């Protein structure tokens, strides 16, 4: 072939469908617009979708969303839910850290942790709620309990694995330069286990989020301020379907926001340090 002896111009770029050549953001925007379009079409042309008591249109949802944030009701509900979630995850993380410490110091500790995780981790967060209601009465403590249970096990397991799989050479280096005991744990083991810790935290956060909203729905507290679950419940009671949609939209947006937050956290730490696991 003459291409061996002659220099040819660069081979023609493989012809992709026009779609792939568009920039990422544009593709996303177009798809989003298409979804909203389909949504509106469904509302306009289907009997089920056209019933405002059953299904809200994009416009109604947007209005309810805007109003909800403007008058503060959605904001308060969101904050209330976040508050419970933060407390629950905080307690869960603390207990998980203690468990991990115990598990890394003794074989029986590890055995106990693995056993408890196997039994309790599969429980959906909301499943423990009736029990929690019995023990803690009709208070937020019951919800926090449910959240804590949903978050302890993923964090503990990830942390324990993280500690166990720390590179022994790093530990040897740490000892060599004079680190011992607690300092060795905080300055070497902890940062080394950070990828696992973050991974555990992401999982725990997701579980906790699902648990808190579901728990509020089950809980049904009426008076006073409530969280997003209560907001949705209330909207259902008064048949404010658009508000229900708006609340779901809020939850979705929050979910994306936290994904991004975690991404930033990871980029600043484990990605920057090249520690990201595959």
């Amino acid at each position, binding site marked *: 072939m003459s291409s061996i002896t002659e220099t040819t111009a660069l081979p023609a770029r493989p012809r992709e*469908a*026009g*779609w792939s050549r568009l920039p990422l953001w544009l593709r996303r925007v177009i798809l989003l617009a*298409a979804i909203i379009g*389909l949504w509106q079409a*469904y509302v306009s042309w*289907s*009997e*089920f*979708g056209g*019933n*405002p*008591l*059953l299904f809200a249109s994009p416009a109604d949802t947007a209005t309810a969303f805007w109003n909800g944030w403007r008058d503060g009701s959605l904001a308060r509900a969101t904050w209330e839910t976040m508050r419970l979630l933060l407390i629950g995850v905080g307690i869960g993380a603390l207990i998980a850290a203690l468990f991990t410490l115990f598990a890394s110091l003794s074989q029986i500790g590890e055995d106990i942790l693995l056993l408890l995780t196997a039994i309790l981790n599969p429980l959906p967060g909301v499943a423990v709620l009736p029990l929690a209601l019995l023990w803690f*009465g*009709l208070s937020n403590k019951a919800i926090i309990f449910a959240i804590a249970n949903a978050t302890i096990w993923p964090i503990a397991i990830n942390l324990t694995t993280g500690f166990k799989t720390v590179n022994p050479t790093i530990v040897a280096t740490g000892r060599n330069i004079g680190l011992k005991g607690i300092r060795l744990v905080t300055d070497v083991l902890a940062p080394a286990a950070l990828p696992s810790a973050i991974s555990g935290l992401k999982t725990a956060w997701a579980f906790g989020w699902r648990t808190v909203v579901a728990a509020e729905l089950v809980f*049904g*507290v*009426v*008076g*006073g301020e409530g969280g997003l679950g209560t907001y949705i419940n*209330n909207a*259902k*009671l*008064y*048949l*404010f379907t658009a508000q229900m949609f708006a609340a779901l939209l809020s939850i979705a947006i929050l979910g994306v926001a936290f994904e991004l937050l975690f991404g930033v956290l990871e980029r600043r730490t484990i990605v920057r340090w090249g520690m990201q696991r595959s």
Partner: protein
Amino acid sequence: MKRFRLAAIFVAALVSTVVVATSAFGGGQAVAPDKIVIAYQPGMGYAPLIIMKTQRTLERRYPGLQVEYRVLPSGTAITNGMISGQIHVGAMGTGPFLVGYARGIDWKMIAPLNEADLWLMAKDPNIKTIGDLRGKRIATPTNTSIQAAMLRKMAEVRLGDSKALNAGLIAMDHPDAMQALLAGQIDAHLTSPPFQFQERNRGAHVVARSYSYFGAHSFLGAVVTEKFYNEYTQFSNQLYRDVAAAIKLTKTNPKKVAQILQDDAGGAPSARQFKQWIGNPAITYTTRPRGLMRTASFMSRTGQLPGRMPASWRDLVFPPVYPTKGS
């Protein structure tokens, strides 16, 4: 281009699946008169329907008609069922009925079932007045229930502010709330017959009665959509008469009705107990609606009726009810 076409086909398939699937819910197709779903909640207040169920009134009159009676835990569940067309006749409290009406559901009562004095029960002897309930946990069925409205009325009259007790309101079904009250997990329960009677038997006392604050008022009613009424006018009118007949039975033969209720409840409470309760002035079975407009305007005042307001009580009921000269 090929890939684009593929994507378009995929999307079209997805959309049609969704449309077809949900149109199964959608169609509020009033059923051809070969199936009808009647839903009510637990409680002796629904006795007229229970009587009709036991005596197979509808099945006998319309051979071939499939009649399904369903017991659902709350007015909200029945509301949802009626909006989506799965329930044709729903029996509920005036509260959820009015809220639905306000929010634009085109329904009216085809046959009110009773009036009832709703009692606010507490177990702790230290809770003697409404004022004692500030900051305490009070259970009502839902925020939109007639019971919640009555509580607000009590707060307004006694404490000057209808919202005064809102902070402690908890939504619970009657059976759950009764258990919680007796177990001490909640402080008070604004409920209805027979639960209030049962709670009193088990050591709770009456803190307040709705009649004292609101006057006599309707409690439960059977509701159908306008669409249903227009499509099956004769059936609906006859339904009214059947309910009225069942109600008459409670007055002419309470012993028999008590037995029916006992059997329906699975043996307990006893027929004797039911007979006592039927005779209790706190509950009166009647197809005459009382205080609907009063209830509506109060609920509207406390912000519980976002939407349209009925102009008169006749807007809330179908023609067979007009002659009762209700309010």
